[in-house]
């Protein structure tokens, strides 16, 4: 089933095909996991939230998929799940209680240390990002996940022009805030890909 497109798999899942949904999980779990981490600065929490995003997506599998990839839609679900994550976790509490405890695999000391560093670094970013309006934050995090303008628009159910203007405003403001807060802004450059039309046509 690995060669099927997201669109085909989604159609199968809508009909109740668990295996098809499992392939979508294989394909997108890592992206959803990293998205949830960046919103919470907590790797363990991100793992539970990843489960919740896919459980929630399964509940809402009747929704039509816009575009070719399921990722924008999944991140749209994730935006809502992480927004009030106390409530989301509570809603799926009993399901999460059935997650198997971690298998007895060796811990890699440098991996553990690296994850702790990540959490500290991410908390610093979040402290600055928290000063942006929430709708700008949503767009920014989706773009950091590598979605194009069109994909963000589909995932968040917004017009493309709105995504474009929010993103440009968010980036400018973030740079300003970082400097005011005494940071150098050295974000990895992962600007949203413009798949249609030229750059620069920012809407007001």
């Amino acid at each position, binding site marked *: 089933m690995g060669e099927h497109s997201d669109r085909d798999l989604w159609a199968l899942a809508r009909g109740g095909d668990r295996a098809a*949904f499992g392939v979508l999980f294989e394909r997108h779990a890592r992206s959803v996991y990293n998205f949830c*981490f960046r919103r919470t600065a907590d790797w363990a929490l991100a793992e539970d939230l990843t489960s919740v995003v896919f459980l929630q997506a399964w509940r809402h599998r009747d929704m039509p998929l816009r575009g070719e990839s399921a990722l924008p839609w999944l991140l749209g679900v994730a935006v809502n799940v992480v927004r009030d994550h*106390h409530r989301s976790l*509570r809603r799926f509490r009993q399901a999460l209680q059935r997650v198997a*405890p971690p298998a007895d695999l060796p811990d890699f000391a440098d991996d553990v240390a690296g994850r702790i560093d990540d959490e500290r670094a991410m908390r610093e970013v979040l402290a600055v990002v928290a000063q942006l309006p929430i709708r700008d934050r949503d767009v920014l995090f989706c773009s950091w996940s590598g979605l194009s303008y069109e994909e963000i628009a589909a995932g968040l159910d917004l017009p493309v022009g709105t995504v474009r203007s929010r993103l440009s405003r968010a980036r400018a403001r973030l740079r300003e805030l970082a400097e005011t807060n005494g940071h150098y802004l*050295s974000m990895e450059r992962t600007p949203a890909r413009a798949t249609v039309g030229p750059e620069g046509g920012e809407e007001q």
Partner: protein
Amino acid sequence: VRSDLRLPPKRDLPPGRQAQRKQHLMEEIARTLQVDRGRARRRARPWLAAAAVAGAALGVAVVVPVLRTGLGGAQAEAAEVLRRAARAAEEEAPVASLGGYRYTRSEGAFLSTTADGPAYSVLVPEVREIWVAPDGSGRLLQREEKPIFLGPRDRLRWQESGSPPVGGGRTSEETFGPGGLAYVDLQSLPTDPEALFESIRDRAEGTGVGDVGAEMLVIVGDLLRETVAPPELRAALYEVAARIPGIELVGQVTDPAGRRGVAVAVESDYSGALTRQELIFDPETSQMLAERQVLLEEVTWVDVQPPAVIGYAVYLVAGVVDSTEDRP
């Protein structure tokens, strides 16, 4: 001294965890499909009065609802009392214009379970304050209190696993811009009960949960709870609740804050254990007072004799204020 602001690199899930999470997802999905099939069979269970055990452990007023087994007339009775609330809402003066923020303060508790080894649970009390403007902007404050063990076995298991932190004690505060807290556009909802029923049923069916009645009651509760529902919509919501398949009258109850009200409920096992989702309201004023979750069967992950309250939320203060710094 300026430090670098950097995005940490992306990582894989820890070794083995992605496979475990996938396995879990597949099992949970299978469960929702099974629940769907098993629903008719399980619905016949009689329901007993809430156990004093849970109430005593919570340190809150114990609710002992009177309910007959063999719930023949329960749906009709539930419908009658819900319609009384609907009429009360209809008689309220319409809200002219709702500026400012709708404020709600609630106190409650939820169960937090640790499953690394023999599972145990604690009840975490929580205070929640929310300010939400009609455009969805607002502020959310959540404070967790000290966790409570419901039974001695759970405390023992916790001690045996080295007494790790079990949650509780966290405080979170967030502010939201327009759209941040608005999950539902209330303006788009019909106030005609028939149309509203269909719209809520479609949403409940769309979740794929299988137990449509229980999901419908959750949605009605969501809309009555922390929203700016005008009286005519509130009236329609009680009308909808009266028609939910499987809704039963629990009877007169005292909510955990000591207020008299009436409880209606839907039984469900879509979360894996058989529970009752209860909605407690005052039929004379149409105000929603509280929600409760009652565990109806014995499970391995919490030391409590069913039926037992494993979660509740009491809505204490509601009103409209000018800013997210004000309280009514």
